[in-house]
């Protein structure tokens, strides 16, 4: 059978050429990502502002920005909102709906499948500024399409359920990626494994638990890592609610925007960005722990095909 992939240097690249292949990307990343990122992290240690006296002569304030943020009730509530937002819209919403769609569409072909996939993808690729208008039209208090459909005139979705609104919005916005990734992953689940479970009388949840999830662990991990990271840094809900009312939808990217751009406190903004990075790291470690042993199982899955 096919040799172990990825481990082998099949194309005879060799270290030298491998470095040459990686170099352009690494250079670009070093210059336009690493360097500004480190600079930003440094800014986080100062009281730097875009204008005013602090712009002319920024002072090193050490961890003040960090302690400031961590003692700011708005930051903490914002953090909590973000955790809810990421958990609700990315982990449960996008990953859940994306998986369900991939699962349901798995056995279907033809125009229906193409239509559903096309519409879901469209929501993903539309420019975010445009998307804001679309959702206003949907959720507007007075003449919103949703209120018209549900016969609930005057119901202020964005004001009364701001967090829920942006969660649903983000599910709409980002499900496409998870759907595509899981569709691909499901294609790698041998149908015979599922059918074995069905023959044994397993229900759909049992099939998922016993057969599908163990086999696509690695894809689940990749997906969760990426969508959490993206959702953590997603600024789009700002166009819907502006963080309000009363900060009830002020997730961290919006908080950073307010601190860094509206209030001009770039130093504090940089510190919070770095805090977001650390929180993401924690998320990643949690995922790794939850999906622990994926390496071993992955290896197992890869070599499980019997020799020809």
């Amino acid at each position, binding site marked *: 059978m096919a040799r172990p992939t990825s481990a082998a240097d099949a194309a005879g690249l060799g270290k030298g050429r491998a470095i040459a292949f990686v170099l352009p990307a690494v250079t670009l990343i070093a210059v336009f990502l690493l360097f500004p990122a480190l600079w930003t992290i440094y800014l986080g240690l100062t009281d730097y502002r875009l204008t005013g006296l602090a712009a002319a002569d920024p002072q090193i304030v050490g961890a003040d920005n960090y302690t400031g943020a961590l003692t700011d009730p708005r930051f903490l509530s914002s953090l909590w909102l973000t955790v809810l937002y990421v958990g609700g819209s990315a982990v449960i919403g996008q990953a859940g709906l994306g998986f369900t769609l991939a699962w349901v569409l798995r056995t279907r072909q033809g125009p229906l499948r193409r239509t559903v996939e096309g519409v879901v993808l469209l929501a993903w690729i539309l420019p975010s500024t445009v998307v804001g208008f679309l959702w206003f039209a949907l959720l507007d208090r007075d003449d919103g399409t949703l209120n018209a459909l549900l016969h609930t005139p005057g119901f202020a979705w964005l004001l009364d359920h701001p967090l829920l609104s942006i969660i649903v919005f983000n599910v709409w916005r980002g499900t496409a990626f998870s759907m595509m990734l899981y569709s691909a992953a499901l294609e790698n689940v041998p149908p015979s494994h599922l*059918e074995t479970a069905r023959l044994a009388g397993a229900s759909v949840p049992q099939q998922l638990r016993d057969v599908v999830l163990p086999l696509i662990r690695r894809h689940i991990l990749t997906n969760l890592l990426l969508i959490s990271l993206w959702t953590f840094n997603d600024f789009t809900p700002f166009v819907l609610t502006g963080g309000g009312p009363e900060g009830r939808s002020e997730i961290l990217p919006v908080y950073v925007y307010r601190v860094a751009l509206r209030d001009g406190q770039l130093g504090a903004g940089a510190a919070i960005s770095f805090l977001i990075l650390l929180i993401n790291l924690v998320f990643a470690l949690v995922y790794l722990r939850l999906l622990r042993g994926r390496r071993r*199982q992955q290896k197992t*899955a890869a070599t499980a095909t019997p020799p020809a």
Partner: protein
Amino acid sequence: MITLHALTKIFPGGVHALDDIHLTIADGEFFALLGPSGCGKTTLLRTIAGLETPTRGTVHIDDRNVTDLPPGQRDVAMVFQDYAIFPHMDVTANIAYPLRIKKIPRAERATKAAGVAARLSLTDLLHRRPAELSGGQQQRVALARAIACHPTAFLFDEPLSNLDARLRLEARTFLKRLQRELAVTTVFVTHDQAEALALADRIAVMSDGRMIQVATPAEIFHRPATTFVASFIGSTPMNLLPARATPAALHVAGATLPLPGPLHSGDNLTYGVRPEYMTLSPTERPDAFPGVISVLENLGTHTLVTLETPTGPHIQLVVPEGEEPPPGTPASATPRRALLYRDDTLLTTL
């Protein structure tokens, strides 16, 4: 007992994967489905298992109409071509999986799994993961899992095709013995005629969703009903040669053979002779196929000789080892037993 009545399966694309199949498989019978790739073997098996819904027709298992039952309620076990052993479960968990779904207590499951495993000499492997098993061992785990749930029927889809040649032979004997002992009705899909001949009580040869011939191995081997079956059966392919009838004789590839009975000269005749049923001689004879030896293939105790006839067709025959002339030698082959087909349907044995 499995009874199929007027079973038809048309796939969305319009493919007639099964076309009006009528079949009864007796209790405890070892029944083989044989046919080329794409003829509908797997579809038939899957329809019995309930993994495909038939377009028309019914499936009965032990007098129970199961056509509309979901697979889990049909009480059959299937072994897939790729074994479908769950890579994340160890051998015990794999074998006990059907029992787990049936909500049998954990302790009892382990005991039962161990019992079945012992029977298949898997006891030492109970805690291994599938990745740590050889192909043959994996196959036995798949079998054990099928046995563990005590089904009324086994459905095997080419379970041996992934094994290497050596292991395959051993597994074949093993499977046969196991089925004898358990006496469970078994439907076995293969496209290897040798496997079907060696294992089955009866064989159905399929082509394009239809059953061409259903018979015992010996019958199938000796009296293949059509040239299709004839070409499919035998460890070396049967020579199928175009024949021409004159009022006096049968003319086949340069040989003049006696007529088996009255034949029309316009008939579309095919003369079939197995490589094993021919004798090679260095001299030319009128009732032998003349030609030049072109390729020799060692079959161990025998050699497969390819003879290029002046009229075109290649003829293959088996000669005992040591008796093969070198390539390039002129030689002739005399048929001992043969079959005559008219319009690809068996007319008579010769």
